[in-house]
C-alpha cells in the first residue's frame, strides 16, 4: 500500500464544556476524494481547522507524506500544500476578482501577471472568471470560483472544501464536480465536507463519519444508500416527514406586481413579483442566496413597506401595514438569520417568545408585560418542539442552531398563523431537527394554513412543497406543481429560464 498523503492519528481537541474531536484517526490517500460526514456540531469544522493550522489540537498528531505535520498557522499549511475553500466566503465586494485573490495570497505577484494567471487557471479548470469584475456583481457560484481559483493558484496537494454546494444551483454543482474530478485525475486529493448525501455518493470514494467528535464509521459511500449514510450520521433511525394529499382552499396570501428597491447597496431589488397561496398549500420558493429572498421576506413580514395593494391577506390590502398589524391579522414570518433577526442573541427565551408573541398570545396587557404568561408561552414552545435547553431563562445565543431554529419556527406555529412565511427553515440545522421542522410545517398546512417556504435546499422544497416557484435576480417565476418537476427543470428555472410558462398554475 502506498503512503497516504495525510494521516491523522488520535486527534483530540476540547473546548470548555464540549469535546469537539475525540481520538479522531483517518487517512487521505493521494488522488483521493474523501468525504467527511456528520451533523452540525459533530466536529467536522474543528478537524479541518486543525489540518489548516487555524487551531492546535490538544493531543494526537498528523503525518504529511510520512513526516510530522503540525501547522501553527494557515501560512504553514499553505506552504505544505493544503488549501481550503470556506463555507462563508472571505471576499470584499467592493474590490475586483484579481485584487481579492491577491489579498488571500502570501506573496502575490504583480496584479497584471496575476490577472493573466487567474484567466488561465480558471479556464483550464472549467471555471471561467473575468479578473477585472467587481466581486459585488458576481453570483454566489462565481464568488466560489474566486475562492477555488485562489486555492488552485497555490498548486495545492490537498484541497479542503467546506459545504461547497450549499450556495449553488444544480447546474453549477455539475460544473464544480467536473472540476473536482479533473483535480483528482491530476493526483490531487480533496477533503469534501457536506451533509448532502447524494453528492457524496456521486463524488467520493471514501467517507469518514463523525458523530459527537468521534469517528463512528468509515465506508465507501458509493456502496451505501443515502438513507444508510444518514442513519450512520445521526445514529438513529430517521423519521421521514409525510402528509396526506390536500385540497386547496381560498387564496389567503396574494402578492401582485410587487416592486421593491433593495434597502442596501448589495441587496437585490424585487421586480414585479406576483404569487398566490391557498389555504392548505405549501409554496416552495427556490433560488440561490442573494436573489431577493431577504427582501421578499421583509416585504411579506412588513419590515419593508410596499404600496398597499402589492400584498393582500384574505383579500384585504396589507402592503402598508407594519409587522405588528400583519401579525395581528394572522400573517406570520420566520426570517433566515436566527441570531439577530428572528431572535435577540443576548435575551432569554422568554424575552424572545415575547418578541413576536406579545399581542397574539396576549402576553401584554395595557402595555405591561405579563411575565408569567410569557414564561409559560416559552415553556410550551420548548415542550412541544422539543427544544433542548435547561429552561426559558437561557439566552438565545447559548442554544445550538437546530434548537434555536426549532424555537423560532415553533414560536410562530404556536401562534396559529393563517399564513406562515419561512426563509431557510432548516439552514445549518441537524438532520433530526430539520425533519421535525418540516413535519411541523406540513402539519400546519394540513390544518388549513398557507405556508411559503423560501429555501436554497431543493431537496427540502421537493419534500415539503406542493407548488414551486424560482426566485432569480429579484424576479419570481410563475409557480408550478412540484409533482412531476425534475431537478433539471428546476435548475433551468433557477437560472432564469422561464420555459413554457403556460404550464404554470
Amino acid at each position, binding site marked *: 500500500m502506498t503512503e497516504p498523503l495525510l494521516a491523522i492519528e488520535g486527534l483530540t481537541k476540547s473546548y470548555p464544556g464540549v469535546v469537539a474531536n475525540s481520538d479522531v484517526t483517518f487517512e487521505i490517500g493521494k488522488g483521493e476524494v474523501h468525504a467527511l460526514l456528520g451533523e452540525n456540531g459533530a466536529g467536522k469544522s474543528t478537524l479541518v481547522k486543525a489540518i489548516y493550522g487555524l487551531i492546535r489540537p490538544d493531543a494526537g498528531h498528523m503525518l504529511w507524506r510520512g513526516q510530522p505535520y503540525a501547522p501553527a498557522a494557515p501560512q504553514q499549511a499553505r506552504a505544505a500544500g493544503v488549501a481550503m475553500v470556506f463555507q462563508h466566503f472571505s471576499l470584499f465586494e467592493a474590490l475586483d476578482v484579481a485584487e481579492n485573490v491577491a489579498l488571500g495570497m502570501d506573496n502575490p505577484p504583480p496584479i497584471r501577471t496575476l490577472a493573466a494567471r487567474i484567466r488561465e487557471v480558471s479556464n483550464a479548470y472549467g471555471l471561467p472568471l473575468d479578473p477585472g469584475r467587481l466581486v459585488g456583481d458576481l453570483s454566489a457560484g462565481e464568488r466560489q470560483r474566486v475562492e477555488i481559483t485562489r486555492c488552485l493558484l497555490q498548486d495545492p496537494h490537498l484541497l479542503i472544501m467546506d459545504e461547497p454546494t450549499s450556495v449553488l444551483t444544480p447546474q453549477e454543482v455539475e460544473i464544480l464536480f467536473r472540476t473536482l474530478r479533473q483535480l483528482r485525475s491530476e493526483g490531487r486529493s480533496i477533503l469534501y465536507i457536506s451533509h448532502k448525501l447524494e453528492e457524496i455518493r456521486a463524488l467520493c470514494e471514501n467517507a469518514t463519519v463523525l458523530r459527537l467528535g468521534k469517528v463512528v464509521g468509515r465506508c465507501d459511500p458509493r456502496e451505501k444508500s443515502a438513507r444508510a449514510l444518514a442513519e450512520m450520521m445521526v445514529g438513529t433511525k430517521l423519521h421521514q416527514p409525510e402528509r396526506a394529499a390536500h385540497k386547496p382552499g381560498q387564496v389567503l396570501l396574494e402578492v401582485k406586481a410587487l416592486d421593491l428597491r433593495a434597502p442596501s447597496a448589495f441587496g437585490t431589488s424585487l421586480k414585479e413579483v406576483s404569487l398566490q397561496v391557498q389555504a392548505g398549500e405549501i409554496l416552495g420558493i427556490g433560488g440561490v442566496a442573494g436573489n431577493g429572498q431577504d427582501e421578499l421576506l421583509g416585504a411579506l413580514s412588513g419590515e419593508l413597506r410596499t404600496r398597499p395593494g402589492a400584498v393582500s391577506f384574505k383579500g384585504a390590502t396589507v402592503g402598508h401595514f*407594519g409587522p405588528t398589524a400583519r401579525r395581528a391579522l394572522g400573517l406570520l414570518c420566520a426570517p433566515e438569520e436566527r441570531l439577530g*433577526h428572528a431572535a435577540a442573541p*443576548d*435575551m432569554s427565551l422568554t424575552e424572545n417568545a415575547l418578541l413576536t408573541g406579545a399581542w397574539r398570545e396576549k402576553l401584554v396587557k395595557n402595555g405591561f*408585560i405579563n411575565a408569567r404568561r410569557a414564561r409559560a408561552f416559552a415553556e410550551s414552545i420548548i415542550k412541544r418542539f422539543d427544544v433542548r435547553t435547561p429552561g426559558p431563562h437561557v439566552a438565545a445565543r447559548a442554544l445550538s442552531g437546530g434548537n434555536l431554529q426549532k424555537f423560532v419556527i415553533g414560536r410562530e406555529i404556536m401562534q396559529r398563523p393563517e399564513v406562515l412565511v419561512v426563509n431557510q427553515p432548516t439552514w445549518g440545522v441537524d438532520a433530526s431537527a430539520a425533519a421535525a421542522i418540516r413535519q411541523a410545517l406540513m402539519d400546519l398546512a394540513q390544518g388549513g394554513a398557507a405556508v411559503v417556504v423560501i429555501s436554497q435546499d431543493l431537496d427540502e422544497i421537493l419534500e415539503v412543497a406542493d407548488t414551486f416557484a424560482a426566485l432569480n435576480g429579484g424576479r419570481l417565476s410563475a409557480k408550478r406543481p412540484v409533482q412531476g418537476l425534475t431537478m433539471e427543470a428546476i435548475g433551468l428555472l433557477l437560472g432564469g429560464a422561464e420555459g413554457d410558462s403556460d404550464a404554470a398554475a
Partner: protein
Amino acid sequence: MLRLEKRPQPSKFWNWATPVLAVVLTMIAGGLLFMALGKDPFAAIKMIFWDPLFSPQFAAYSRPQLLVKAGPLILIAVGLAVGFRAGIWNIGAEGQYIIGALCGAAVALWFWPAPGWYIFPLMVLAGAFGGWAWAMIPAILKTRFNTNEILVSLLLVYVAEKILAAMSVGRMRNPDGAGFPGSRNISQYPAASNQELIANTGMHWGVVAAFIAVIFTYIMLHRHILGFQVQLAGQAPRAARFAGVAPARLIVLCLGFSGAMAGLAGMFEVSGPARMISIDFNSYYGFTAIIVAFLGRLHPVGIVLAGLLMALTYIGGELAQFMLGLPSAAIQVFQGMLLFFLLAVDVLSNYRIRLSVREAV
C-alpha cells in the same frame, strides 16, 4: 499568556462587580496621579471619599451637598440610560440642561414678583419642555436626514452655552443688578423658589423628581413592553424591526425623554442651588451624567448608587482642591478615569480570562 474566552451567557456577577472593580482601580490610579503631583495619595483619597461624609470638620456642610449634587446627576442619567439601552446616544444632555434652565427661569422672570401657586408647576413644565425641544433637534435631523445624533447633540451643547451667555448679559439680566451679568435671584422669589424641603438634608424638589424618575424608569424598563422594545432595539436592531418596533418612533421617544429629564434637572438647579441664570451657570452635570449612567449599568437602581458616588467625588474633589491644593483638572481626570476603567473591565462580563501555557512548536 492571557487569553480571552467568550462566555456562553453574560455573567450576572461581573455585570455588577465591574463597577466596584472600576472604582477600586480608579482609586489606585488616582492615588498614583496624586503622588506624582507630590501629594500624599492616602490623604487625598480619604479626603475625597471619606471626609465629606464622616469628618467632624466638614461633614455638616458636605453631607447635604451629596443630595444637591446627586439629584441632577441621577435625574439626567436615568433619562440617558433609556436611550443608551436602545443604542441612541444623546451626548448633549448638558445643552438640554441649559435650555431647560433657561425656559424655567424665563417663566419665573416673566411673573416676577407676582405671587401664585401655579408659577412653580409652570416652571417645571417649561423646564421639561425646553430640554425636550432641544433634544428634538437631533431627533428630527436623525429621523429625517439620518444625521449622527452623537455629533448633533454634542455640538448643540456649545450653541446652548452661547445662548446662555447671551441671555445672562441680555434679555435675562437683572435690571436692578448694577449692570453685572446674571438674572434676578430666583431662589429668593418665593413663588418660584425650589427650596430645601427638609432643613440641612439637601433634599429639594429636584431630588424628589429624580427619585420619581428612577421608579418610573424602573417600571418602564422592566415591566412595560416599551422597555422591552428599547432593549431589543439596542441589542438587536434587526430583530427589533422584525418585532414591529419603528426605529424613528423610538429615536424621538428616547431623545425626547432624556432631553426632558435633563431640562427638568436644569430648571430645578437654576431655581434652587444655582439661584440664578449666569454665564457660568452650567457645571457639566450633563456630561458627568454619562459616566453615572454607565457606572450604574444603565439600571435605575445602579444609577442612584453611581450618582451618589459621583456626587461624592465632586464634593470630595472640591475639598481636596481646597485643603490639599490639588488642581481642579486632577479631579476631572479622576472622574474620567472612572469611566475609562469601567469600559475596560467591562470585558469581564462577556469574557473570562484564561491563563494558557504556550506549547513549544
